[in-house]
């Protein structure tokens, strides 16, 4: 399933907000078919890393390669078109629009018929088929999470970015979300999960990176990270 050229490769990324140096020399890669997690506490730079990957903020230096091409200077729209998709933190659904319209927005850049993908999303989340005409803002947190994931899958992504999927969800829903992430991964989509919930993320990931104050302080396989003493102390609470 994995091959040698990385699907996503960040090299020496430095990102600033004004004068503040947020990301410092971030290098990481995700190979095709991998499930990678990026761990870190509050304000460690996790969200900024995602925004840099998506092109919502531009790095001051460093390069981003996606699917064999340099996308450092490309627009967000271009990158999404090349096969990135995101489930944003707090889901960020279009609340005054219906579930179906939200899903359609996920397929915004696609000119081909996406009714098949819609069927697949409804298969994955049967509840959404019943709720398709309901306004997204009226759904429960768990249901919204389904819409957000379905919306991301509508673009048939090569790389699915998940920003804090466990945020604001009841434990049972967190487990459900991670099961779905695994399902999506098994269907051949590469996944980057950005999480504070290190236990949960490492339990499904192949590789992990640990961010602290804008630097990558650890990078290893999930097994090694799970047993790492420092990480246990800092994040795993054991």
């Amino acid at each position, binding site marked *: 399933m994995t091959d040698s050229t990385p699907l996503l490769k960040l090299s020496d990324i430095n990102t600033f907000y004004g004068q503040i140096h947020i990301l410092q020399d971030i290098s990481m890669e995700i190979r095709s078919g991998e499930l990678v997690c990026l761990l870190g506490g509050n304000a460690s730079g996790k969200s900024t890393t995602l925004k840099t990957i*998506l092109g*919502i903020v531009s790095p001051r230096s460093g390069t981003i390669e996606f699917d064999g091409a340099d996308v450092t200077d490309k*627009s*967000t*729209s271009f990158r*999404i*078109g090349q096969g990135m998709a*995101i489930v*944003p933190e*707090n889901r*960020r*659904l*279009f*609340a*005054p*629009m219906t579930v179906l*319209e939200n899903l*359609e*927005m*996920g397929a*915004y*850049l696609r000119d081909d018929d996406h009714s098949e993908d819609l069927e697949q999303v409804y298969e994955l989340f049967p509840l959404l088929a019943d709720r398709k005409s309901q306004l997204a*803002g009226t759904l429960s947190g768990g249901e919204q999470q389904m819409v957000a994931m379905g*919306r991301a899958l509508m*673009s048939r992504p090569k790389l699915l970015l998940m920003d804090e999927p466990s945020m*604001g969800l009841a434990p049972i829903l967190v487990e459900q979300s991670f099961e779905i992430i695994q399902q999506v991964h098994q269907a051949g989509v590469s996944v980057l999960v950005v999480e504070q919930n290190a236990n949960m993320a490492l339990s499904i990931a192949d590789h992990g990176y640990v961010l602290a104050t804008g630097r990558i302080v650890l990078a290893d396989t999930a097994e090694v990270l799970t047993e790492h003493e420092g990480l246990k102390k800092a994040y795993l609470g054991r």
Partner: protein
Amino acid sequence: MEFFLQQTVNGLTLGSVYALLALGYSMVYGILKLLNFAHGEVYMFGAFAGYGVLTVLGGSSAPLVPIWLMILLMFVAAVVVSSTIGVALERFAYRPLRNSTRIAPLISAVGASFFLQAAALLLFTANSRSYDAPNLIAIQTGIPIGPIRVWMVRVMVIVTSAVLMILLTLWVNRTRTGKAVRAVSFDREAAAMMGIDVDKVIVITFLIGSALAGVGGVMVGLVFGRVFHLMGFVAGLKAFTAAVVGGIGSIPGAMFGGLLIGFAEAYTTGYISSTFQNLIVFALLVVVLLVRPRGLFGREELVKV
């Protein structure tokens, strides 16, 4: 009854134009949270574009082309001129300030408004011009409704506005780009994360809002005759009031608000006095803001969790 009907038709005509203008305010506000104060001037330039076509093609007393073609060309010219100005405003007056403080584009909007007024003064002088539409389409033509006869021009204004508003509603609810406009209005960053080209959506919004204002300008010229370089100011203010009354950012709100302001103005003029026309309109604004600050159709600001 006859008088009441007459005032109702007046209100409907005026309200249709306010609604077209209010849509531009509301759509732009929805997407940028910006009050485009130059919108009234976009409408004024539309009115002058229509006047230009009318004059070049022989004027209303000796038109060189069939009357339906004349009117069509006037609308086309207005749409082209107004949407060009609207898009230029976005590009040069607002986009450079998009990531600055919220007050900056607002000041830029006021400046753009003065700039366009002054430009019109230089281009067209301070004289007001007349479309003299009764020469084009006789006032006697029209559709009898009960005891009154509604002038064909008014019928055209009301029907055209209704058709445009229905088309806009369909566009915004049914098409991919229309839905993208709604998505960007609600959450610009999340929309960008879907691959929506936010800049493009903003340009399209200005294009459509300005085109509608241009159409409104020609309509006012046809119905009320006079076009002049300051006509955008009061009309803009009224349309802005309509947008706020309806709930700024809401498309059905702008339509309803426009009609409401139109009726309020017509009935005040008819039953009280035209002196009180503006007083009543703006009092309506104050009352709505007191009772329902988000406007009649405005949605409650959702607290994002």
